[in-house]
């Protein structure tokens, strides 16, 4: 691994960063070893670097792993000392623990069985001392010779060193975890009513941001345009930039609430659940902060929304957010009834509630009406034998007409309807697993986009 010669030339002037770090570490106060003088260190350091340079391994040597000059000096001294006492031992390559670790691998299981009842290592001095008797003596010997090594297997040292290498960027990132705090919200200077939405990639400039005074006019303009042109792509884009301007200026007041409420309603109407969910998340926090708006209306939507996404935890939280008084308000009460009807499988009540939804809740209920019809049909097919009048299905499942009900059933199986003298019957007894399977499929496909 000898690098090309032109690179060698360069080395004189351009040392790799790792070498610089190494030099720096050598003279760090915390790495001082008493008894090793500065001059000794310096000359040893020069020796090391020169030798690496001569070998041409300056760039390939792992300087992070290289023992410091003072450590090498100390080690040599200790070895010299030992040599005079013991017969010469080469620096042990820790054969004992190498063998041990191999053994451990194959016998991991039985060993953990042995320590049965002894649990974690620090709980049990007994187990540890047993371990000591087996594996510590060679370590102790090593310690005599080299204080810098502890009773660890070579394997572990190796693993840790590898981890350390991977840990390179850690120090800098943990010293300053966050950018300097902003000096406060910016105040916008932009006077344009309309602005295209762009995702921010850097701190916004005041000249690009509209102050609240302008934003209020923007909202009026958008409301007019929505009524006149009904162009959702345009409106959504404009609302997003409006929201962004509010956020970067930390504006959180009743105007903010009305922006999110209007955007939420428009998104609902267009079935844009992702955008709707973003708005409702903001609204929840804004209402909780005590800012006025239409919490009843939107708390009811929130419940219906989480019924749709079948998010039990969020549903639970949505109910937890309600005050006793709010639970008595019609929209909220309606949503809660929808929830409990579904929870108890009471499709009869559920479809009656579907026929009478306050505000824009029907847009949300439309999202899951099909799957609930399938669930109800699966239910009916198992319980009602041998048949049901189609009219009964139409009424129970709130279809607009017999024709609509018939079409719904035929879409799954054409054989299930039969004409009689003056009416059509639904042959529940013959449906088998048809609706059960359709139901399972419909519930597994809950659209979670925009879900937090």
């Amino acid at each position, binding site marked *: 691994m000898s690098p090309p010669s032109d690179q060698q030339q360069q080395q004189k002037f351009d040392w790799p960063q790792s070498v610089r770090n190494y030099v720096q570490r050598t003279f760090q106060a915390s790495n001082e070893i008493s008894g090793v003088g500065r001059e000794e260190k310096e000359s040893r350091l020069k020796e090391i670097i020169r030798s690496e340079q001569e070998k041409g391994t300056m760039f390939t040597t792992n300087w992070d792993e290289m023992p410091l000059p003072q450590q090498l000096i100390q080690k040599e001294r200790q070895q010299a000392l030992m040599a005079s006492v013991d017969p010469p031992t080469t620096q042990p390559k820790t054969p004992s623990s190498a063998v041990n670790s191999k053994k451990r691998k194959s016998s991991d299981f039985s060993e953990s069985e042995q320590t049965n009842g002894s649990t974690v290592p620090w709980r049990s001095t007994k187990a540890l001392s047993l371990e000591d008797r087996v594996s510590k003596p060679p370590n102790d010997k090593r310690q005599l010779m080299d204080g*810098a090594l502890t009773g660890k297997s070579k394997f572990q040292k190796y693993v840790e060193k590898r981890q350390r290498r991977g840990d390179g960027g850690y120090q800098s990132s943990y010293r300053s975890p966050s950018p300097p705090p902003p000096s406060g919200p910016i105040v916008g200077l932009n006077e344009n009513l309309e602005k295209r939405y762009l*995702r921010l990639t850097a701190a916004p400039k005041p000249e690009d941001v509209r102050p609240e005074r302008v934003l209020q006019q923007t909202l009026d303009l958008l409301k007019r345009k929505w009524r006149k042109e009904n162009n959702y792509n345009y409106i959504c884009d404009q609302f997003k930039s409006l929201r962004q301007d509010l956020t970067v200026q930390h504006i959180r007041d009743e105007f903010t609430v009305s922006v999110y409420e209007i955007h939420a309603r428009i998104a609902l109407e267009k079935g844009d659940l992702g955008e709707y969910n973003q708005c409702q998340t903001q609204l929840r926090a804004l209402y909780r902060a005590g800012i006025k708006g239409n919490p009843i209306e939107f708390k009811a939507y929130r419940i219906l929304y989480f019924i749709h996404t079948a998010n039990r935890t969020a549903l639970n939280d949505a109910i937890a957010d309600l005050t006793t008084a709010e639970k008595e308000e019609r929209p909220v009460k309606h949503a809660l009834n929808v929830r409990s009807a579904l929870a108890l499988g009471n499709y009869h*009540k559920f479809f009656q509630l579907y026929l009478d939804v306050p505000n824009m809740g029907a847009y949300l209920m439309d999202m899951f009406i099909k799957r609930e019809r399938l669930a109800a049909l699966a239910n009916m097919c198992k319980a009602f034998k041998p048949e049901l009048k189609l009219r009964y299905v139409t009424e129970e499942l709130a279809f607009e007409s017999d024709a609509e009900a018939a079409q719904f059933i035929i879409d799954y199986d054409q054989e299930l309807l039969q004409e009689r003298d003056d009416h059509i019957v639904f042959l529940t007894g013959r449906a088998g697993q048809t609706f059960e399977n359709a139901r399972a499929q419909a519930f597994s496909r809950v659209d979670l986009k925009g879900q937090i």
Partner: protein
Amino acid sequence: MDGLIRQFRVAYAATNGEQLAETLNPDVQTHSAKLQAIWGRGDSRSMTSDLNFLFHQDQARLSIRLSKEETNGWYAIYTAYWKAVGEILAVEGLRGDAQSSWAKVYVAWKEVTLLTIRGYTNHDFENWTIPCLYVTGRYLRLYAMRADAERALSNDDMAVDDLQDDFDPQVEEHKSLEDCARHLNRIFQTCASDRAPLEESRKWGVYYAVNLLFKTYFKLNSEPLSKNILRVISAGRSDIPPIDKFPKSQQVTFKYYEGVLAFLEENYVEAEKHLEMAWLMCHKGAQRNLELILTYLIPCRLLTTHTLPSAQLLEPFPRLQKLFTPLARAIKKSDLQAFDIALRDGEDEFIKRRVYLTLERGRDIVLRNLLRKVFIAGGFEEAKDGAAPVRRTRIPITEFTAAVQMSSGETIDTDEVECLMANMIYKNLMKGYIAHERGTVVLSKSGAFPGTKV
């Protein structure tokens, strides 16, 4: 400082991890005098020179063997610990006029935590010292929650990430705790990713870290993150020491959270298994924990085996008694109205404990019991030629309608009763079919109500 390091040496010489962890305990309530002694006059220069002496010069007196690497690690930790102690004493009003805040305590303690983690990644700390990691993590979580609570009280400007289109309410409420969760996760990773042989491995710290993470994630209302942890554990199950090798306290905590997670996913059979283990292992003096376990175990049992809690079981827990006894009584008496009232009365608490949606399903059991009563009241058909008498299995819907109206105290139309009965059949709580045109229900001759001996 002197006393602290002496304690450190004793613990270290004995390789006693918990004793060692005690040296990092920042609890003001129990260690106020000790902490004040450590802080001394708050002179950082004298603290540094003390530590220098104790760790570097005075090594001769050390009966323990500390490598250079380890020394550096511990030195840094105790330096940071000293600073944190200063903030803690100040915020508790134990440092004269000095002022501080929980936010500052959190930051100072975070430093202690990060340095402790570094001890394992960079300074060769051995696995018996892992209780130190646990102690730092445990208090990091406590300080994070206090810092969040403190910020909620003061009307400080919220921390807004200016690059977001909308502000993030979660960040606002739990800024410190979210940060804390990341560091606890680092602790978890540090333990779980250690590939040393088992007896030297930091894997012995895994469940300590996991339990801290569970507590944190639950506070942050983030079950998905908890599920991730479970997934990591089950993927590495072969080399993580089995849970039953950990102290009982950790086992109970883990089983409890594992059970609750299954519970929230409506996996009641699984939940029951874990919760029951937690229940059996939990220390009998740990009233609060026993109560928490029962809060989920009782609804589990209600749904899996239709078992109600006995008066004897609930006796030591007045709060649970108040919550569950009316429900249990209503189910036994098949009283729909009483059940609805009991559910409504306990609603706030049930919602808070996240058992409401589960308990609500107990209404099916009440209804089943009620319909069963109607069936039994119907008596037997006339026996033919000395054969064993058979119950009347063709029952007019009107009889059931009357029963439901009496029990619920509400008027209800036949269509809804049929719907409710269809549900019973669909859920296998009742066997038979509804003949809609004839207005009768035809029940199975054998086992019309499975599991109830009828």
